């Protein structure tokens, strides 16, 4: 295995929710190391903590305990503004439910992260167009989400996640709301991105999807059950 640079490292990551008198242990000490250009599938039964892990890694949520280092930066204890900056620059998040702004066009949705990055209007639309072309949606830029199919919406969401050239692309069941044909299209997009060098972590329930990944992390009851590496049949470019 290549001695690639580790970009994500978690140690003893815990997340607990107080539900009245009860405490829900969503994550109970998770250690993961993810290297540049890896394509990781996160699997596990419902309620095992997959989304919780993704949200922590994506800096959308903060852990109850444990350490999380992203690109050499200790994320725990960072200021709100710093976390926002990381979400903006380092992370691209693709959701199961797309989470697009309904009133904005595809182009504008993709431009949003660039707006918060403080990039000029001209440069913004240029880069948003490039991102949309990459996900195969060059001809639908002026459409609003409700004028697009589910697969097209997810392509917009992927373009939005990619537009700031993040170190890592996170996808939480990106095909969960799509039919199998469309799912295959979307998975193809992820394959291409990976081949272009993108680091990807994807939550999925589908074994055949996880086949495409280099490594599968399986969670059970908030803990890692197995790291299953199958590098042998997945080439990756830089």
């Amino acid at each position, binding site marked *: 295995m290549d001695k690639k640079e580790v970009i994500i490292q978690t140690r003893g990551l815990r997340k607990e929710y107080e539900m009245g008198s009860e405490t829900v242990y969503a994550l109970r000490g998770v250690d993961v190391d993810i290297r540049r250009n890896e394509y990781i599938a996160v699997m596990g039964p419902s309620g095992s903590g997959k989304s919780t892990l993704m949200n922590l890694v994506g800096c959308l*949520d903060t852990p109850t305990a444990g350490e999380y280092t992203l690109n050499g930066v200790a994320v725990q204890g960072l200021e709100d503004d710093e976390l*926002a900056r990381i979400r903006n620059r380092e992370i691209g998040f693709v959701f199961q439910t797309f*989470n697009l702004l309904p009133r904005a066009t595809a182009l504008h949705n993709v431009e949003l992260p660039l*707006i918060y990055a403080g990039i000029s209007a001209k440069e913004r639309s240029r880069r948003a167009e490039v991102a949309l072309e990459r996900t195969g949606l060059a001809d639908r830029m002026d459409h609003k989400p409700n004028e697009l199919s589910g697969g097209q919406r997810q392509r917009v969401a992927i373009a939005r996640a990619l537009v700031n050239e993040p170190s890592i692309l996170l996808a939480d069941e990106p095909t969960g709301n799509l039919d199998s044909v469309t799912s295959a299209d979307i998975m193809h997009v992820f394959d291409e991105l990976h081949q272009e060098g993108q680091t990807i972590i994807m939550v999925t329930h589908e074994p055949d999807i996880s086949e495409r990944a280099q490594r599968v992390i399986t969670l059970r009851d908030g803990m890692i059950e197995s790291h299953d590496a199958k590098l042998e049949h997945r080439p990756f470019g830089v």
Partner: protein
Amino acid sequence: MNPLEGVVLALQQVWAHKLKSAFTLLGVVIGVTFLIAVITIVEGMNRYVEEDVAGTLAGVNTFTVVRRRRVVTGNEQDDARRRAARNPQLTLRDVEIVQGAVPEAWLVSFYEDRGLPDVRRGDERRTNVRLVGGSPDYAELQGWTVETGRGLSELDERRGLRNAVIGSDIIESLFPNESPIDKELRLGAHRFRVVGTFERQGGMLGGFRDAAILIPFSAYRQRFSRSKNEVDAISVKTRTEDEFVEAQQAVEAALRSDRRLRPGEENTFHFETSDDILGTWRTISRILMTAVPGLVLISLVVGGIVIMNIMLLSVAGRIKEIGVRKAIGARRRDILLQFLAEASTLSLVGAGVGILLGIGLATLVERISPLPAAVPAWAIFVALTIGLTVGIASGIYPAWKAAVQDPIVALRSE
């Protein structure tokens, strides 16, 4: 991020929900409309009163000695009024004293005046006429310019000639299509000859000059006055403002010594200056200018509360959007700014509508009354500042609520 996006969004929403926006902005609109209308009218009045009224009614650098105050300003005590009622009538003797007290170069005039039931010319008649018996300098001192013919002369005065100079309203009524010069008029039982006309003054108070007929004081005294030596008023016009104070003091001293008033005793006469006339207006405008901000403030506070509630609803309905924005990198201040911009835009739209309505209202008042309307630029500036302030004040709390949303909680909300 750019607050411009918030502005555009707010404008889109105002446009998309016109009726809702109208109600949302009602308070701000009413407040600003009111503010603009009142400022406009008061400003217009001020300009009018200071320039036109002060300049024509009493004349610049002019003061007039009268028996008692004629213009009620409302800030005069009752007992002062009762005392003044006992003041003696001014007489020709007082005229001589005033003339003796000031240099000859200054204009001194005296006059009596009264309303006439009508003035006739053949079968034509006009009611609502003011007859003024004035000394030769009267017209010049009042600033009444002769337009055609001539004014009254020393000769007219000395001989008590039945000559008259008439105002433009009289000409309109009795000589619509011809020159009035050398024509005859009947004032009551007496025939007078028109020798000149006065330039039209117009406006709210122009009625006085425009409906006046000026005849020699001596002619007036013989034919229209009950007493033979009383006068209504003695006016003095100085050339400069410095002389004005000086002249007033000199006249006061002369009249007091003639009337043997001891130091500490009140004057038994009254000086009327343009301040007297302006005083009434100043009182009204002061009341308006103090009462109005209170009313405006109330409607703005109410308007602000409404906007705040609408913004809270808007934030509550867009938690998911806030979550999405935060997930892709919006900082607290970005969200704060977005909603502040939205609230400010809303409020500014209200202020803009208010400004237009206010100007409209002022214009309407100008049309149906003689008041002139002048919209000062500062009023528009003030209104916009108020709009912005209300927007920020009412938007800050909802915007803050939006800004501190936890990204994951916001994303999960429906």
